[in-house]
């Protein structure tokens, strides 16, 4: 649903053109001289866990600089603030990752809001919103999940009532990353209780500007004790028709476009750095850091790196990591795959489960040190217990692993829907 309504994305050229190479060199050169110095405070492992203003400011400045240099939004038309290129974002992403660049903070805007607006918005909406997303001038959050609408997203109960020419919104959204910093939210709400799917509409609603006036943001505490997720309560927020994305009743279709891009299966490549496994991220989240960890930890009287059973587990993970990266590579080339969505739709599932299993093996390597909280003074072996717990956020959020497997089985293998 909805997917078929997308304009056709240009088919990738089979081989790198000279222009691609020039762009790649531009990225590389700029990155060599313009990476920001490491902050003198800690950064969370991903954008959705940004917890302080200083973290956000640092990352926002970085996204702005990368945007100004043409590395963010390359594939959007220039009239919407983009680079006006085609198929260059993937190259920029590769270079961003290779350079070990920090991640981009406006992750919901870049990965979800911008593609949804680009595919479904009015000309005015595109011109109004996309530039601020690319430059990180305006931070976005996503209002899809509710207490009663998790995996079953279409069960959304937040309601936008039509009053004269306005929409009045009541409802309760949960798991809203970045809501405490967000200027805007993409919101899925019900406008008709008579139809499960056709009763949904999609809005672009102000958050920061409406705090205390129909919008309340409350932090949700994660099992780790960390912040990052929020509840957002709507109690009579009023918006106009310009807040509607696409037609009333088309919300499910827009949501599908949004999720398709979030899952890496959409035509537009999301600008991103540090979200893969190369570079520094691999050392701190992926299995790339496990050999060094295993050399530093003692297990049964010798380095854990000398325990053949541990070695086997680490090598298993290193193979999965290499396989993941090679699949990312192969996914960019149509000849090397059998079904257009088969590899793209694996991305989130593979990455989230690889990072979870990595953290679990890291804890095993640490042994008793894995009982320690990351705030423990002098903990040198890394915050793996914390990362392990946090990893469940990624196997649950944005479509649980179970839902991802349904999607793959149904869309790629053509199996009957499981619900």
């Amino acid at each position, binding site marked *: 649903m909805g997917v078929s309504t997308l304009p056709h994305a240009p088919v990738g050229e089979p081989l790198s053109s000279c222009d691609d190479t020039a762009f790649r060199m531009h990225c590389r050169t700029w990155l060599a001289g313009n990476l920001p110095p490491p902050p003198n405070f800690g950064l969370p492992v991903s954008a959705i866990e940004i917890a302080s203003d200083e973290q956000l400011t640092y990352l926002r400045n970085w996204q702005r600089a990368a945007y100004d240099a043409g590395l963010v939004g390359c594939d959007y038309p220039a009239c919407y603030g983009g680079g006006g290129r085609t198929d260059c974002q993937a190259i920029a992403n590769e270079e961003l990752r290779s350079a070990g660049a920090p991640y981009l903070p406006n992750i919901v805007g870049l990965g979800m809001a911008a593609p949804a607006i680009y595919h479904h918005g009015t000309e005015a909406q595109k011109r109004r919103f996309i530039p601020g997303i690319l430059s990180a001038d305006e931070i976005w959050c996503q209002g899809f999940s509710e207490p009663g609408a998790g995996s079953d997203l279409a069960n959304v109960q937040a309601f936008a009532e039509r009053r004269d020419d306005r929409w009045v919104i009541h409802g309760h959204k949960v798991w809203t990353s970045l809501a405490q910093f967000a200027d805007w939210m993409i919101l899925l709400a019900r406008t008709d209780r008579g139809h499960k799917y056709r009763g949904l509409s999609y809005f672009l609603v102000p958050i920061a500007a409406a705090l205390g006036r129909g919008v309340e943001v409350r932090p949700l505490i994660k099992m780790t004790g960390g912040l990052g997720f929020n509840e957002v309560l709507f109690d009579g927020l009023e918006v106009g028709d310009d807040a509607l994305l696409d037609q009333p009743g088309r919300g499910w279709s827009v949501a599908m476009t949004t999720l398709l891009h979030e899952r890496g299966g959409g035509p537009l490549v999301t600008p991103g750095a540090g979200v893969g496994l190369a570079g520094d991220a691999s050392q701190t989240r992926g299995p790339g850091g496990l050999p060094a960890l295993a050399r530093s930890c*003692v297990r049964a009287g010798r380095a854990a790196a000398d325990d053949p059973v541990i070695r086997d587990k680490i090598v298993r993970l290193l193979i999965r990591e290499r396989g993941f990266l090679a699949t990312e590579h192969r996914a960019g080339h149509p000849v090397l795959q059998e079904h257009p969505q088969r590899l793209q739709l694996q991305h989130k599932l593979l990455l989230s489960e690889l990072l979870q299993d990595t953290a*679990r093996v890291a804890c095993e390597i640490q042994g008793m040190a894995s009982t*320690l909280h990351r705030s423990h003074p002098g903990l040198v072996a890394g915050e793996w217990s914390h990362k392990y717990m946090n990893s469940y956020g990624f196997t649950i959020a944005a479509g649980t692993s179970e839902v991802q497997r349904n999607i793959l089985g149904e869309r790629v293998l053509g199996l009957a829907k499981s619900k």
Partner: protein
Amino acid sequence: MPVHTAIRPDDLGFSDEAAMLKQTARKLLARRLPLEQLHKHVAGTIDPTRECVFDRDLWTEVVELGWPAVAVPKACGGFGMPLCAMVGLLEEVGRVALPCPLVATFCATAVLRSCRAPSAHELLKKIVDGTPVSLAITNRHGSWDHEDTDVRVRASAGLLTLEGTAHYVQEAQKAEFFVVKAQAAEGVGLYIVDARAPGVRIVPDAIVDLTRDQGQVDFGGVTVPAHACIAKPGEGAKALAAAWPAMLLAVTADMVGAAEWQLQTTAEYARTRVQFDRPLGFFQAVKHPLVDMMLAIDEARSLLYDAAWAYDHAPEETDVCARMAKASASDMAAYCSGRSVQLHGGIGFTWECAVQLYFKRQKHNEVLFGDGSFQRAVLAEQLLGPIAAVAGAES
């Protein structure tokens, strides 16, 4: 390698008395420590450097019920019940994630029982009276080798002086006495040290588990009398080895009980939470992992009872049986904990949901006294023999 030859009785030694202890504990704990109260008590703050939480009223009740005395020999004023009674009790303790130093004290009890010195008997009597005791036997690497320690002991003028640090000491802030493993020229020995003795400094660890505490204990020239030695240098490792199966099974029992809570709570969620117009449990992606949790729990529980019987009746099988149980339970706990969060979806990932308390308790239990692959490596020595000497040349 003749193991498992002894024929078990039908009830695996689980007498009426043991069954009653378990049943009573279950009822009492369910009433005394409802989930909301546990959560409020241990998870009232997210600050990891919070003060150690210890509900002394709860502990007093536990003591009045006689639970610390269950494993203490009758000669020391205890009930001297068989190990299977103790593991049944500790299953119930795990089921409510009891935030009391009962497991740690039981482990110390097992070690004290394996020492014949009069002072060990004296401390056992104190345990009956409700004194929490813990073992200070682990070095900076968290080693489970009975010979490893970072504490040294030196004798002079009839006094013993302890110097060094014990790491990963369970319930370090709650214990009133420590049984300390220390190195002398003749080997390691075991020593009773009062937690308030001059020179003893307890440095709390910031830990993930909210239902216990852990710390390092510095011994800065701590002087104790000669009779504080309960296992002479060279005899400490043997005393620990004798107690070890009981210690493994104590943690195993806690894991089995906690995992049963995880199973039942997650199954209840799957029976009631509706998505796609159906209870979650309709979906095999939820149902089958729940069944696999159950299978894993029952394997660990069967091995637990089997090993407890061996501890009481077939000492030659005990080490293998206990390590099997701990290995099974550690892997089981990892699996059940992961699924308990995942199958709860978003709500399971919150601080507010009690699932996190058990997840963290189990994570700690998994590694305590050695995880699954550690136990299997030791078991392989016994079941397959040692690895032949030739090293290298793997390709």
